[in-house]
């Protein structure tokens, strides 16, 4: 039997053929605030400590809070390093924790780009461009987000793993919590984002 005799079935082609019309989203307007439609709570899981991702997370968090949306940011793994005080140089209790913090300096002002970091040239240029185009820095966005009531929840497990103490963290952080708290916040009334 040759391959040519097998009836061809391409599920992707079938699925495309089954779609009727093109979704009209480009010009969709936000619904009127008549109490009938409410924007859902925003839950951002900030996993990354990369400059560009932290920036995006903080833009969304501050905008969410500005729009009256209850906004929570769960900070975990590399994302937790962002919320360590800028003044902290070495954190942790044992040599491995200390070495990790030495290799990647914690704090919001010491973020690196995931691509094109070039020993700090990339972030430096990003900072220059941001200033030139009036883009708020991650630090400014963090201050705005906190002033507007964004809740930052540190991950207890990551705090333990990196040997971080509550006094290592910036002011105004929430009570440390775990994955169950985050899953519990993923309700019909929330939009979770993993950044």
């Amino acid at each position: 039997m040759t391959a040519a005799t097998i009836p061809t079935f391409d599920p992707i082609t079938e699925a495309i053929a089954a779609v009727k019309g093109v979704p009209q989203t480009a010009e969709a307007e936000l619904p009127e605030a008549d109490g009938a439609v409410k924007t859902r709570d925003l839950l951002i899981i900030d996993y990354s400590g990369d400059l560009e991702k932290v920036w995006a997370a903080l833009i969304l968090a501050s905008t969410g809070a500005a729009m009256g949306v209850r906004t929570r940011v769960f900070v975990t793994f590399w994302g937790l390093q962002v919320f360590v005080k800028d003044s902290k140089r070495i954190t942790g209790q044992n040599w491995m924790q200390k070495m990790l913090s030495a290799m990647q300096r914690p704090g919001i002002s010491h973020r690196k780009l995931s691509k094109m970091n070039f020993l700090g040239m990339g972030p430096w240029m990003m900072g220059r461009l941001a200033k030139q185009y009036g883009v708020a820095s991650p630090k400014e966005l963090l201050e705005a987000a906190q002033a507007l009531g964004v809740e930052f929840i540190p991950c207890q497990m990551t705090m333990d793993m990196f040997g971080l103490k509550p006094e290592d963290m910036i002011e105004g952080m929430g009570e440390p919590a775990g994955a169950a708290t985050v899953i519990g916040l993923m309700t019909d009334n929330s939009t979770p984002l993993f950044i």
Partner: protein
Amino acid sequence: MPTLAITHTVDARGLSCPMPIVKTAQACRVVPAGSVVELLATDPGSTKDVGAWCRATGNELVEQTIDGGVHRFVIRRK
């Protein structure tokens, strides 16, 4: 149309997204309900964003004009 008495002016000229919205939201937290807030912005995205913010927060966008690249929004706080 009678000129509205501006309670507070938010000068977000030269600032990019999301700062015009963030600064407006911060201003609207401190002014009393019913007061009129003026926002000046040069971010072209603000033409859509301010409307979206007003609809989401229930504040009223009374006026929207542009003069020499500066967008001016007059918002009545709910």
